[in-house]
């Protein structure tokens, strides 16, 4: 029972990713795409978590945190890029 639920849940997450991918492809603006990517990252976190339940393993719990961290970093970088082009500033500005 639980396995079935989890499988459904995983599939739904993947579906959400698929939908977000569609948004990445069609755009239209860059921030749209970044938003969608961010969302994919968030869904991945959930996906990995669920999958560790499926497998009864703790081995992937690190991955969850890492995805969180990295999704943040890439969103940050992308947002910076969209905003300024230059994602790491050379000079401090305050």
């Amino acid at each position, binding site marked *: 029972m639980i396995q079935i639920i989890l499988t459904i849940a995983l599939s739904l997450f993947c579906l959400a990713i698929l939908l977000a991918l569609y948004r990445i492809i069609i755009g239209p603006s860059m921030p749209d795409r970044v938003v969608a990517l961010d969302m994919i990252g968030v869904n991945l976190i959930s996906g990995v978590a669920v999958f560790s339940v499926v497998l009864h393993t703790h081995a992937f719990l690190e991955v969850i945190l890492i995805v969180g*961290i990295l999704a943040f970093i890439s969103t940050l970088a992308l947002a910076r890029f969209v905003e300024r082009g230059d994602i*790491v500033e050379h000079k401090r500005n*305050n």
Partner: protein
Amino acid sequence: MKINDVILKTVSKAAVLIIFTFGIYLFLSGHNEPGGGFIGGLVLASAFVLLFLSHDSETISDAIPLDFKKISALGVLIAFASSTVPMFFGQPFMSQSFGYFDLPIFGKTELATVTVFEAGVALTVIGVVVNIIFSISEDE
């Protein structure tokens, strides 16, 4: 154009702290759990990446006055030199050894020479990644 980044900077400070801790944890736990020198090093490097993104390269280079090229060189040196040590004891190059010791506080603890090797690897990774990002962002 001045951009107000207070939220970002505050949050990323906290995040960096978490990442650092986590990176070190990954590095240390690599023997038995996922992680290890490479991953640990990479995660630590990504903390630096976050710092670079949320601040600017000048601030970072002022705050951490290290030559990351030399750090990576040091890492390579540690990795290679530590592996040569067994050669002086008549062992093949790269022989790792490990043992279990009863330490006062930690109880039964495993100590392995491979940790030194992995530390070298981790240092290399950090050094290289930071060096690359630093070099690019410094370019006019």
